[in-house]
């Protein structure tokens, strides 16, 4: 292909985009709407995933030490625990600290128990965190094997619920985002297909004048790309501006202390790049797929 021909294809593609007027507007509109949808959900899902991860990081194992255990034991237990693979951090709490925490967490009612400080019925404990929260159960079980550990507690019910819930939420979120992307692919290529169906006759004429399939395809390639790129502009603007605004007004969210969101940079930029990538790819793909139908003339 000569350079002049390459130039011609690009010029022609751009010109067709312009000449198709309403059709172009309609296509770009469809791309825009669909990509805004995809973009907003992507941002939402990735942040929910992030929050789920934060919640999981809070999970900790409480290993209660036998009341009979001596000081000397504690160091050794700590060593044994840190010998287990996947342990991230270990913290030791005396039973006095425990009682204090308990009283605090119970608020006013808890004060009543203060009277019993001298006769503390609680145990000393280790608070252990796993590197991968999902390994919590295994590590807890291993800790339980240690002789001087009286009982291990990691809020089994809550943690199991949390992990299960997060797993479902993640799967549903993934399924949602995947089906949304496929929906986008379908809707965009579908719209482009219709605009090209309307040009069936023109493609037939080109073939009769001796144009090869590639010669016909190239301007459509350019046109599809332009439709995709133009259609990505507004969604990207929405995401960048919207997300920036969100990160600047986090005080609303901070009322729920477990909520932190992904930082604007690089997250919003990455999503934007993804959006324009999806737009251009589907544009080109939809365009070429539809044109293919008419090339056998």
């Amino acid at each position: 292909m000569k350079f002049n021909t390459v130039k011609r294809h690009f010029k022609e593609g751009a010109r067709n985009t312009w000449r198709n007027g309403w059709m172009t507007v309609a296509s770009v509109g469809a791309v825009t709407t669909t990509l805004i949808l995809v973009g907003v959900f992507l941002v939402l899902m990735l942040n929910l995933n992030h929050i789920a991860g934060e919640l999981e990081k809070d999970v900790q194992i409480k290993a209660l030490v036998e009341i009979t255990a001596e000081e000397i034991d504690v160091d050794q237990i700590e060593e044994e625990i840190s010998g287990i693979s996947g342990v991230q951090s270990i913290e030791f709490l005396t039973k006095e600290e425990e009682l204090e925490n308990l009283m605090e967490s119970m608020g006013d009612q808890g004060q009543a128990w203060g009277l019993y400080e001298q006769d503390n019925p609680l145990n000393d404990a280790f608070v252990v965190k796993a590197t991968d929260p999902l390994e919590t159960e295994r590590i807890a079980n291993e800790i339980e094997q240690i002789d001087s550990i009286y009982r291990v507690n990691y809020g089994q019910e809550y943690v199991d619920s949390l992990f299960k819930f997060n797993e479902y939420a993640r799967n549903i979120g993934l399924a949602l985002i995947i089906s949304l992307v496929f929906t986008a692919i379908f809707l965009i290529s579908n719209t482009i297909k219709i605009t090209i169906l309307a040009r069936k006759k023109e493609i037939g004429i080109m073939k009769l004048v001796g144009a090869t399939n590639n010669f016909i395809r190239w301007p459509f390639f350019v046109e599809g790309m332009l439709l995709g790129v133009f259609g990505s502009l507004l969604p990207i603007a929405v995401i960048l501006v919207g997300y920036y605004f969100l990160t600047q007004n986090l005080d609303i969210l901070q009322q729920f202390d477990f909520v932190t969101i992904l930082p604007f940079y690089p997250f919003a930029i990455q999503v934007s790049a993804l959006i324009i990538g999806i737009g251009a790819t589907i544009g080109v793909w939809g365009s070429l797929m539809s044109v293919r139908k008419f090339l056998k003339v």
Partner: protein
Amino acid sequence: MIEMQDVYMTYPNGVVALNGVNVTIEQGEFVYIVGPSGAGKSTFTKMLFRETVPTDGTVQVNNKDLIKLKWKEVPYFRRNIGVVYQDFRLLPKLTVYENIAFALEVIEETPKNIRKRVMSVLDQVGLKNKARFIPDELSGGEQQRVAIARAMVNRPALLIADEPTGNLDPDTSWEIMSILEEINASGTTILMATHSKEIVNTVKKRVIAMEDGRIVRDEHRGEYGYEI
């Protein structure tokens, strides 16, 4: 140049448009195809650049067997043939200039040569001043002349013209005829389906008369008429 043997064409709806056609046309000939409406003239011409493929028989053009021609080769084959369609088939969104230039762009001519050739044929058909118009802004006869210009712009070896003067007044028709004769004189084979008794009887050439999908007469220096 052209050789058809026992060509039959039945359209999907059951119409038999060609019913056993045998014909040989030599390089450099000028041939009229005449016949009543629906005789199969357009179908006959469409065989020659493979717009349609016969249901039976063999078609050879430019030493190429069109039935065996691969899809990939069709565009290259068509570049040696200029066609004026009965319904013009101009690209509606391109200007007159661009429509004609398209036939040269596909063969990757240089922009300079394209410009030169297009302006030259536009001059020949008398439409230089309408180069920037789109087809919808032209009169019927003007559109027909654009179609003629596009067919001859890349100096094809074979020029097929289906009713090229149907929308033209007599004066313009004669001008077109003299252009066709000129092209023919320079070696191009010309095949022209026409209803113009006056042209056929004045510019005497070989006449192939069709009726009901059959060739009923084939005369050199013949007259218009298709009764047997």
